[in-house]
């Protein structure tokens, strides 16, 4: 990395103090902070008053659900873009596949309609998106950098055009009455309905926590180290014996599954799926969430997703300009702070971190550059 920017001379970057404090805590102390925070996150839908609420413009609970759904997507895309360094412009394709699988299996409009329980549909949808991740990844992951980006963009468009063109997928007409999770209140009315965002929000937050634990464990495992190696220098990783192709496929597949899960949640809450929400603009918006927050940093991408989804709902004035603002934000950010609001850092394990500190008397080195390093010596090299 760039020695000039490291901790000795340059001004302390945004958030570094908090990070140092956090990294200094033991695992138990970290949980002590995390648990009240998680409780607060769960309580958010109940705090429907002035500084937080998005009403009267948007239903507050649904706005929260949408933000959470976006955060889930951002975590999934972060596996691909931030962890493994593969720029995916067609991530919306996986989101669409998840939503469509849910719709095809649970909507009475569909030819495949059966009385499938929602809890069975979720794994099916995730499995289908994983398979589609393999299908997309196998031929294309030989490509690098920009070529990969364009090919994934093509994939996203192909998915959308298939939804347009295959009559069984009902194009613009769409699927009504997409199913949701089971459960009723004591008076017999269903819990998960389109108009009430709160249960959906809680469900999504739970999914986010589970996914975060899963992804966090993956990051700390051999898989995660392989991803970082590929991200930083693919050729070197390959020479050092990392099965780059296999781990790239894994990144794609895991990212796809998370995108698919988000798609299922989206379809369930809206209870309606048609071909209108899966264009490239949406895909770029997802990417903006990841890049804005700081790709490679899980907390960062969640923050990015909140910025992308919640801010326009909260401040209706900018809602119309949101795509413009986020497009410009991408440019400005790349020029002035390419690592995003919260940059990724070179990771050591929590215990390793404390050991590092004890031994050397200072914090672990912090990556000041974007994880989006120039991986190839040339495209297709």
């Amino acid at each position, binding site marked *: 990395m760039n020695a000039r920017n490291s901790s000795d001379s340059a001004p302390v970057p945004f958030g570094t103090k908090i990070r140092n404090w956090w990294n200094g805590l033991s695992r138990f102390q970290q949980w002590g902070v995390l648990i009240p925070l998680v409780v607060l996150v769960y309580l958010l839908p109940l705090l429907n008053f002035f500084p937080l609420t998005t009403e009267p413009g948007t239903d507050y609970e649904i706005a929260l659900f949408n933000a959470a759904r976006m955060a889930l997507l951002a975590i999934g895309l972060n596996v691909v873009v931030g962890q493994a360094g593969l*720029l995916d412009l067609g991530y919306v394709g996986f989101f669409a596949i998840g939503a469509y699988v849910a719709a095809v299996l649970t909507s009475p409009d569909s030819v495949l309609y059966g009385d499938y329980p929602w809890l069975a549909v979720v794994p099916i949808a995730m499995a289908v998106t994983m398979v589609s991740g393999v299908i997309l990844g196998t031929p294309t992951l030989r490509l690098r*950098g920009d070529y990969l980006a364009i090919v994934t963009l093509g994939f996203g468009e192909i998915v959308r*055009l298939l939804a347009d063109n295959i009559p069984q997928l009902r*194009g613009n007409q769409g699927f009504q009455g997409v199913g949701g999770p089971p459960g009723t209140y004591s008076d017999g009315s269903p819990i998960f309905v389109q108009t009430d965002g709160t249960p959906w929000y809680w469900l999504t937050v739970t999914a986010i926590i589970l996914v975060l634990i899963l992804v966090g464990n993956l990051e700390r495992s051999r898989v995660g180290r392989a991803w970082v190696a590929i991200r930083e220098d693919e050729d070197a990783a390959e020479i050092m014996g990392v099965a780059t192709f296999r781990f790239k496929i894994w990144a794609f597949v895991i990212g796809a599954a998370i995108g698919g899960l988000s798609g299922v949640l989206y379809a369930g809450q809206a209870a309606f799926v048609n071909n209108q929400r899966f264009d490239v603009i949406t895909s770029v918006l997802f990417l903006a969430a990841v*890049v804005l927050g700081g790709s490679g940093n899980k907390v960062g991408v969640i923050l990015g997703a909140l910025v992308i989804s919640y801010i326009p709902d909260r401040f209706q004035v900018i809602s119309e300009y949101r795509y413009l603002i986020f497009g410009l934000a991408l440019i400005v950010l790349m020029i002035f702070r390419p690592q995003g609001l919260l940059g990724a850092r070179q990771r050591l394990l929590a215990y390793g971190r404390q050991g590092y500190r004890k031994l050397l008397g200072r914090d672990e080195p912090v990556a000041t550059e974007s994880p989006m390093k120039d991986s190839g010596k040339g495209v297709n090299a």
Partner: protein
Amino acid sequence: MNQSLSTQVLAQGQPWIGFDVGLLVDRFWSNTVDGLAYGSIYALVAIGYTLVYGVLKLINFAHSEVFIVGAFAAYFTFTALGFRPGPTLEIPVIEIVVNLLLAGVIAMICSGLLALTLERVAYRPLRRKKAPRLVFLITAVGASFAIQQLILLWRGANPERAIRLLRPETVFEIFGARVTNIQLTVFLASLALMLVADIFINRTRLGRGIRAVAQDPDTATLMGVNRERVIMLTFVVGGVLAGAAALFYIMQIPQGVLYNGGFLLGIKAFTAAVLGGIGNLRGALLGGLVLGIAENYGQSLFGGEWRDIVAFVLLIAILMFRPTGILGESLGKARV
């Protein structure tokens, strides 16, 4: 349209994708003619991608917006000249030619300026910071997005109402396929522009500078080539050709002046550039024409709604099997 079509197909229980060889045989020559006329637009836009990629190794994602801004410029030139949507006016040929030329020049200036601005505002700061390539690409995506949204806010989501200066009339027939005056003009004018561009790159001093920077930026700088100026020139040349393509586009598809009208065309033009061999000027021409024709054949074979998918599948297939394209990547490797 799509929706009613699919509902109809569903009702009749027909397969959702056709494979109509008979139709392809019937329309073979007319598809070829249409494909050549349309493909020459791809080719002109593809040069912009190819040149920038050759020099900077950057997919200038915002080039599609450079193109569509040219189309808007040409459109507003038409309205400023007093043309209105509706029936084509009966005016002398010479007047049509002058008006078209004027619109073309203005479109070329606007597109060229936009390309130059993009380079200065978005890409140059990154170059000075020696940013990784992915950062460039994300910037380009952001720029494309921002320009598109600006146009959307300004003009709304509906396409501009079609203005036709030239009524399509059959000039001659070839194997039973009609060649219209518009198609002929577009094809010949594009060929001429491509020829000029080729001579410019391969025969002039400035072109040699571009090739030198594409081949080896550092050595070129040492040899006295002003790299910054070459990069600016590259963007301007690409932008100007995109402006010309924009004029040809609204001559063929007058109803296509739309805020996101450039997006799909841009992707296809990029496909054309890759198909021919990115960084290769003649490859861009060949790739554009091949893509235009292939798309039309695919349309006859599989049905109209599969046209775009043909282009995307072709893109993926080329990148998988021959990522250097038909003629190979060669801007930097060209003879000196």
